[in-house]
């Protein structure tokens, strides 16, 4: 019995040894399999890097300086920028907007001449567009603006005029837009037209709001309102402008002392 137990134990040990050996073997196999996988991947990396270098060199060769010069001579004709095309800083950039002298004529612009005025009218929109602020800020602004309005009546008149002009322009744009809608294959143009209309309307509404925020401008406000109507009618789809225009009028009436 003892012998058989001993024997059984040794068989057990041997079996354990064999199992361990088998496990080590399996592990070793896996390690080696992984190693060759790594090697294969390395080879792939080498091949890809060589391919990359090849392509890179090809691109560099095809786009070498002499080739680019040839293309430039024949096709593009680019030249080095001149001193006048460089700006030293933002102030220099801003200086372009300044008139040359006190009574200098407005520069001739190739694009729309009203843009500067429209931009000025749209400027207050940087103030957050929620009702409370407008209402609260209005009295404070009113005190300041009163002086300004007295000091610069011409400016205010210009402003109203510009707003009126803008309204008139929007009224002009509306029929054009309708026309273009009728034409097939002009979807994109229509879209652009719409966006522009939308922007203009928004600008108009803002300008109306701006006017409204200023006290003592009842006449201006009515003008703005009156002019705002055709714009509103022309593009009723733009909810923002449709909503903001009455709001501006409302706040204006509120803030008026």
């Amino acid at each position, binding site marked *: 019995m003892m012998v058989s137990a001993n024997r059984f134990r040794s068989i057990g040990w041997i079996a354990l040894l064999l199992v361990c050996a088998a496990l080590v*073997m399996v592990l*070793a*196999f896996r390690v*080696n399999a992984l190693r*060759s996988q790594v*090697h294969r991947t*390395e*080879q792939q*990396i*080498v091949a890809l*890097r*060589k391919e990359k*270098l*090849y392509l890179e*060199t*090809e691109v*560099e*060769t095809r786009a*070498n*300086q*002499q080739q680019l*010069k040839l293309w430039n001579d024949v096709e593009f004709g680019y030249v*080095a*920028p*001149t*001193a*006048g095309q*460089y700006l*030293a800083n933002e102030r220099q950039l801003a200086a372009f907007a300044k008139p040359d002298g006190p009574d200098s004529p407005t520069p001739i612009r190739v694009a729309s001449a009203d843009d500067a005025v429209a931009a000025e009218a749209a400027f207050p929109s940087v103030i957050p567009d929620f009702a409370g602020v407008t209402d609260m800020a209005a009295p404070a602004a009113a005190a300041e603006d009163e002086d300004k309005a007295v000091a610069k009546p011409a400016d205010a008149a210009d402003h109203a005029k510009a707003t009126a002009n803008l309204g008139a322009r929007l009224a002009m744009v509306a029929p054009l837009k309708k026309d273009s809608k009728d034409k097939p294959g002009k979807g994109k143009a229509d879209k652009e037209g719409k966006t522009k209309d939308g922007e203009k309307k928004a600008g108009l509404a803002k300008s109306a709001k701006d006017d409204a925020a200023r006290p003592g401008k009842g006449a201006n406000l009515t003008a703005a309102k009156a002019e705002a109507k055709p714009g509103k009618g022309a593009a009723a789809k733009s909810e923002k402008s449709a909503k903001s225009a009455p709001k501006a009028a409302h706040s204006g009436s509120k803030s008026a002392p």
Partner: protein
Amino acid sequence: MNSLTASAAIATGRVQLATVRQSALVTARLRALWVMLLFVFLTLTACVRIAQLGLFEQTPERTSLAEALLPSRGEITDRNGIALARAFASYSLWFNPKALGERGAPLVKTPEEVARALVGIFPDADYADLVARLKAGKPCYLRRRVLPEDANKIFALGEPALEFPREEQRFYPQGSLAAHVLGYVDEAGKGHVGMEQVLEPRLLDPAYRGTPTALSIDARAQGALEDELGRGMLETSAKGAAGVILDADSGEVIALASLPSFNPNRSDLAYNDLVFNRVSNQVYELGSTFKPITVASAIDAGVITDLAVRYPSVPFQVGKFTIHDSHNFGASLNVPEALIHSSNTVTAHVADLLGPVALKRTMEQLGMNERPTIELPARGFPLWPHGGGEGGKGDWARLTTMTVSYGHGIAVTPLHLASAYAALVNGGIWRPATLYKVDPAHLAQGRRVFQASTSARIRQLLRMIVVDGTGRKADAAGFRVGGKTGSAEKPGSGGYRKTSLIATFAAAFPMDKPRYVVIVMLDEPQATASTSGQRTAAWNAAPIVGRLVPRIGPMLGVVPDAHHDVDISDLSPLVGSGEGE
């Protein structure tokens, strides 16, 4: 009896049968054993092999990733990392006559037809040579480097004997750009002419060749310099042109071009005169471009203290030689006027006052008496004027001093002049030119040649020459260019030749804080319509700088600014106006 016999017989038969059975059984067992042994052997072998493969076997010729990607020759890049030279597996055209088998003709078509087709693809190929090689039936290269599209065309010829092995060769993606700086690598893999030769040990060293070697060259500026020099050379029908752009402070060579150039990709064609580097190897009498050096030396030595002092500008005789100007500028000129009009006589008078010792010392300090300091292997030795005394090492004669003062009787390379101008404008420190990228924190020591105040004065004077004088065509708006023209007659048999000139413009910009020195030189420019019938530097070399500076300035970090300039208000009242050389 009978039965006994019969039983005996049966017994014998049985015994025999048993024996047979026994032996058959043994044989069968033996065979089974063999088969079993065979199986055991096979199994064991398989196991051993599996274990061997799984445990010990490494892949044959296993190389590391880094080793596999290590180029056979290191890459050379410009200062911004643009590859200028790299080891690249490109196609070559190999003729294998045995591709169609041992017997029979090696080609499908006749050698003449194949050669004609090849000439159609490579117009520069030699038809007779190709026919001879194809007929000889020996394996050989027909062409060392073939573009992929050309390889496709050859493949379309349907000749199996024309093979395209991909071989690692030296390739220059930018073609002939900076050819004289780089040089080329011959078929044996040896570098020649430029940095390929200089850097050879490093480029081949396995420890270093994995990382690219950056040169000081800026490929964009190099391209612009070559373009503009090439254009200037064409416009003036010049024999050659040379140009160098030098960082005024560090001495780094930003661009260096010698035209006509060569294509380093065709190393088989590179054994010719075009590999000769005009910038570092050829010496010229650079003429009037030396005048600012003389004036600087005189200001530094205290000989010129007042720039309003006037010197006679009429021709005068020294020994048998008469010194005269290109034009008559009146009876007298002051120093700013002399530089603006490029007067030889006034410069000679200044040099006479300065004396040979001081001028010679300045020239020596500027390295004019030795080969130019640069890494390139081809560096020309200047023609240094002989002095008196033993071995010609004594002081210069009076006439020598005078001629050297306006750039005659001394011949140096354009690179000498570039380094000298860098010292003139950078505050007075001469530093050796280098083609290695220099860390701004570790500039070369250099040596002081001029005082900083002298350098400031020279900056004003050089700017005046461009604003009011002979360098007007180099005045790129906003770049504050300053410089000096030089038009020297080339020496020939029996004196100087009136119509063979070396036209040079030595410039620096921006003059309020000089960053770069530009030297442009044309070898024998002709009077053409594009130069208004003139052949002097003011009409051919100066316009090249005028076109070049706006191209390279913004790329090199110099922004044009029309509101900045070096202040020349204290000198402006001293000059009239006129034309010079």
